[in-house]
């Protein structure tokens, strides 16, 4: 199965986002690079708004991800609660 991946800048906010992703995607592999964090996952990766909000302690709009986003690969499916990457299509 091919990997999907997403990469963020490393900062205060993405720390919570990455923690949320790791919890929701046990198969994800986190690669910490200087100033960047890349997360690979086999086949499928989901980012859940609720998990991020629980960590940040505030409301979070998934489009805020774009501010920190460097790159991603996979087919993107996005709604108000989930942002998911997969090779399903």
């Amino acid at each position, binding site marked *: 199965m091919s990997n999907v991946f997403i990469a963020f800048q490393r900062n*205060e906010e993405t*720390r*919570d986002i990455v923690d949320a992703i790791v919890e929701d995607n046990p198969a994800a592999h986190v690669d910490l*690079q*200087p100033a960047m964090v890349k997360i690979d996952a086999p086949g499928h990766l989901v980012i859940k708004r609720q998990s991020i909000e629980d960590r*940040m*302690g*505030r409301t979070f709009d998934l489009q805020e991800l774009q501010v920190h986003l460097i790159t991603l690969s996979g087919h993107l499916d996005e709604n108000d609660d989930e942002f998911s990457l997969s090779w399903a299509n």
Partner: protein
Amino acid sequence: MSIDLRTVAITPLRNTFDHIASRFGDKPASRYQEGSYRLQAENNFHYRPTWAPHYEIFDKHRSALVMDDWYSFKDPRQFYYGTYTLNRARMQETAEGAFSFVEQRGLADTFDPEAKALALEILLPLRHVAWGSNTNNAFISAYGYGTTFTQPCLYQAMDQLGIAQYLTRLGLLVGGVGSVAVARVAWMDDPKWQGVRRLVEDMFVVEDPFELFVAQNFAFDGLLYPLVYRNFDAAIIAKGGPTISMLLRFQEDWFTETSKWVDAFMTTASTESSQNSKLVAGWVTDWVARSADALEAVADAALDQGAAALAPIRDALSERAAKCGAGQ
């Protein structure tokens, strides 16, 4: 000459302060953690306070609540000074917008006079109630233990001061300068306010910080805010339109937000042990009953259906208590 560019990863020798690392492990800590945990002064107090020699200056035993770790309280909003002030600045901007909108268009002058009189009669004395909560939360913050517990209580105290100011400004804008003095006389002498006034004063002499937390932030505010800022607000909208409601925006938003925090603390305290659960449940029963009694006369004057409106609010509050593990 060729220049070789390469990336060198420099890993920091330490990720955070030692006292934070000892609790969470040596990994990058959030600003909330760094600004909250293990900041409570614990050692090197040579003298006990002369006014209460059976306690240390900061003493866990001031509350009957027994916590193995007072830092297990965690503010779900993760407010430290920076995030708190930023957040409130945003809320204040919204509220200021509403005030200037009402002022510029002269909406208060065209507001239905009967509805206006009722709104002033019910809302303005609440500035004294808010000041009471300011005092109480400052007390909890001063005599409670553990920064994650005391810190948000101080924010709550400041918020209540803000609410008192918004209510005052509402009075000045809608009812003119004299209305504030009228409200003070009502607070001191009007029979319908004496129950609430007595309750506020009774809370002033509660010495257990967590009991006071339950009494003020859960029981009393848990009844007062839905009653006034939902039911009464809706009644005023029906009578005269949304002008007054716009000026209450801050309180409504604020109550929704702070309830989450209050519930989180109630849950942490109640789930610690069965003794705590019983203790908190006892406080809830006691203070909810007293608060409901005190608010009856106010509800009677404020709403067409009168004190009957309190029953569903009380049920909802019991449900909240049960969810927090402090139900009967």
